[in-house]
């Protein structure tokens, strides 16, 4: 499909602006003035509408396709969430920061505060900041809070411990904050190797970052012990909330001994991910970390009004522009409000049921490296298919032709040829049965005609793309930039 720049016709116009109701001002000095207008597309409104409608049709999405991406919780997003968020679209974030301005923003401040309170209850934490703009941003914020805590106590800490099954953002976030990483391997039973963990735990460890259930979809039964060992060294426990969908109402990280948690509102609380974002990554903390929370902080006064606190002594400062991705927060709060206590419990129950169902129905045809009851996702390996030359990526492309977004492949890195499936709670048994049938078909085809995979996918606008060429030639901007 042509680029919008290739469809551009000099002089063609789209949206028109209001006429000016003020006199034209004298020109800017020549040195400051742009010589030529930026070479943006010149298109009619209908050109623009057809172009982007055309592009949208080249995408898979949750609304059009089953999207069982492991570790990413791609559930159905209720349509009304968008309407709820739109109610807050006109409000400027500077208003509550003006003197006496918070009384003009009680709705927005109240929503952010009450969402934080609900998330604190859901996770068992004492307080939540909504400021981080995505999960990884929340991780970094959480590690900054941990660094501030240690600094205030005069602790000399150098390392952050992560299991090798962790999300790549965990080590990257801790490094951004200046820590060195110690990686602990996974034991054959699928959890962090406890003996190895004990060996690396010294007083120089600032934090241990865990995902529980982990990226293999397994709940670590030793999690309490891990928290205790960490705390013995005054290391704090960081909970990566990416997989929280599995345990809503069942386990609260705060009760188990975690000190910091980030949440991915777009995962657990069902707000759309927009093809790569926006997300929202609130961070919950236990009491000892509250003084370090980012500013500005939204507070509730005794009279029931909401306000913005002056930056507290000890605060790590601002981690982003204002109060967080408020539009995403509004959608998440609308979701929590509608689904309610019982609904949230049902979410995790049905997500776990669906994942185990898929696991049981496929484990005779795909290798299951960690054969245990799983939580919300299960991780297979295509090792058996590789013997006939068919790799996880080939199975992924087969699925695309059959109308399914592929599961996550090649992650977690510790499973060779990983195929990581997370069906979520919003998929029906029929959808799962149909998906299972197609996965079984892929396994059969891998035996009967492995060469057939080479030409897949056939049904998409493009066939397999040359990623090496893209990296080598680096065409990242249409010519003429």
């Amino acid at each position: 499909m042509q680029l919008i720049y290739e469809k551009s016709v000099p002089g063609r116009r789209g949206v028109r602006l209001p006429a000016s109701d003020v006199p034209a001002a004298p020109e800017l000095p020549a040195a400051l003035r742009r010589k030529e207008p930026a070479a943006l597309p010149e298109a009619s409104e209908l050109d623009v509408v057809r172009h982007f409608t055309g592009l949208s049709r080249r995408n898979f999405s949750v609304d059009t396709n089953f999207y069982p991406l492991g570790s990413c919780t791609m559930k159905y997003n209720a349509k009304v969430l968008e309407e709820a968020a739109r109610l807050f679209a006109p409000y400027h974030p500077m208003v509550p920061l003006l003197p006496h301005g918070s009384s003009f923003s009680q709705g927005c401040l109240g929503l952010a505060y009450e969402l934080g309170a609900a998330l604190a209850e859901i996770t068992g934490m004492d307080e939540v900041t909504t400021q981080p703009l995505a999960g990884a941003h929340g991780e970094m914020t959480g590690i900054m809070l941990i660094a501030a805590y240690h600094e205030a106590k005069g602790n000399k800490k150098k390392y952050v411990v992560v299991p090798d099954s962790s999300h790549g953002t965990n080590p990257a976030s801790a490094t951004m904050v200046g820590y060195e990483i110690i990686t602990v391997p996974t034991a054959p039973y699928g959890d962090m190797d406890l003996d190895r963990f004990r060996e690396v735990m010294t007083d120089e460890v600032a934090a241990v970052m865990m995902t529980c259930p982990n990226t293999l979809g397994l709940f670590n039964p030793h999690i309490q012990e891990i928290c205790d060992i960490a705390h013995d060294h005054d290391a704090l426990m960081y909970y990566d909330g990416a997989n929280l969908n599995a345990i809503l109402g069942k386990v609260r990280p705060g009760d188990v001994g975690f000190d910091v948690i980030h949440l991915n509102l777009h995962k657990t609380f069902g707000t759309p991910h927009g093809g790569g974002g926006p997300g929202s990554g609130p961070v919950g903390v236990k009491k000892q970390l509250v003084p370090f929370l980012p500013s500005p902080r939204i507070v509730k006064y005794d009279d029931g009004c909401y306000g913005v606190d002056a930056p507290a002594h000890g605060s790590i400062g601002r981690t982003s522009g204002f109060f967080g991705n408020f539009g995403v927060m509004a959608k998440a709060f609308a979701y929590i409000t509608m689904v309610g206590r019982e609904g949230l419990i049902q979410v995790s129950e049905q997500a776990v049921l669906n994942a185990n169902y898929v696991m049981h129905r496929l484990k005779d045809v795909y290798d299951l490296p960690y054969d245990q009851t799983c939580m919300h996702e299960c991780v297979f390996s295509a090792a058996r298919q590789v013997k006939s030359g068919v790799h996880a990526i080939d199975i992924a492309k087969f699925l695309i032709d059959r109308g399914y977004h592929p599961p996550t492949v090649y992650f977690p890195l510790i499973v060779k040829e990983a195929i990581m499936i997370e069906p979520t709670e919003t998929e029906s048994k029929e959808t799962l049965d149909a998906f299972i049938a197609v996965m079984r078909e892929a396994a059969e085809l891998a035996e009967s005609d492995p060469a057939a995979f080479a030409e897949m996918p056939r049904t998409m606008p493009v066939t397999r793309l040359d990623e090496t060429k893209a990296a080598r030639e680096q065409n990242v901007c249409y010519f003429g930039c």
Partner: protein
Amino acid sequence: MSTASYCPNTPEEVREMLAAMGAASIDDLFQPIPPGLRARSFDLPAGMSEFEMLRRFEHLAGKNAQHLAHFVGGGYYDHLIPAVVDHLSGRAEFYTAYTPYQPECSQGTLQALFEYQTAICRLTGMEVSNASLYDGGTALAEAAMMALRITGRNRLVIDGAVNPFHREVVRTYLANLDVELVEIGPKLGMEDDLRLRAAIDDATAAVLVQNPNFFGSVSDFRKLAADAHAAGALLVVSAYPVALGLIESPGAMGADVVVGDGQSLGNPLSFGGPSFGFIASRKEYIRNLPGRIIGETVDKKGQRGFVLTLQAREQHIKRHKATSNICSNQSLCALRGLIFLSSLGAQGFAELARLNYDKAEYAKKVLGSLSGVEVMNGGATFNEFTVCLPTIAEEVVTALLRKGVAAGVPLSPYYPEMERCMVVTVTEKRTREEIDTLARHLEGILCS
């Protein structure tokens, strides 16, 4: 099922599924969780229908002041959003998609982001752009980290006229690293960059500036760029994208990295988010750019297609050696920016900038003519300017808020020595009548 959990399976189907795996109940599936670890509390209200929820949300939104006339900026701006932006970006195939990890079934998102990267390069005068960062402040912080990596130096010079919120984000990001951050205090009304130029030394990784700056002043950074380059440092410019319809691009002024906040390009105020941050640079720095980059390539049949490229820089492959920890970005907001720019087009975008300029110049003249009100900017400004009043600016802003006008951003919280000053922002949405009303109210308060 009485709750709105969006779980479709009927009790009968649940029984069938449990039977298929030989489990007696859903509780059996939670056996891996030791009983002692079960939630001690889960005290949340019962759910409700979407109609009830919306009513509650309407009530909540009604607690915000309605119909405030915004003369406040501070990094977020009240601009027009053409209807096509909501309609097209709201298409479910864009809206409910995930990160384009499987390129064949994500060409829509990938091509749109490639077109977005192109638009950002053309606006900023840069050669390469990524597919978006979180917001303007975090983009500036990422640019600072990028400069540290590129130069191997650990000193940064930042202009005190850079948005104070963005400076604070930079400080937060750098707090735990071995970096010296030198902030050069601004002098209102003096738009020269001599103080910045004098602060550059052989250890400086980059100079960070903003154009127009927080006070609304537009600067020519060519000399600053030359001095930075002579010392082996980079020039990082934070730019207000709407201004780029009228003022010279940072690239033409010698910038090496350009960042900014894309909110003004088709994203609603939404109480501060979501928006998107942009970052663009010269091509030689592409491997140091944080976040996702979309590249053009061909498929097996030789047809053009787009993929996530240079992923070996990213956290999901490089883990602790990645260029940044960013994973989710702000793709949908970046898409909104692209649709916004495409629907205005080259001419419309230049006109938009001109409208902002003309309206602010009108407001500058009207407010500047009031007795005791002084416009402080020494040179050119774009859609914002700084006025000093005969009295405390915070008190004036409070009094005007009660009249339904958010008159400006008082400077005292960020520059304590400027307690009589405020920054007034005028976008294309402010009518002459609103500007005149602001002036009338301001005059009334100053006279009383």
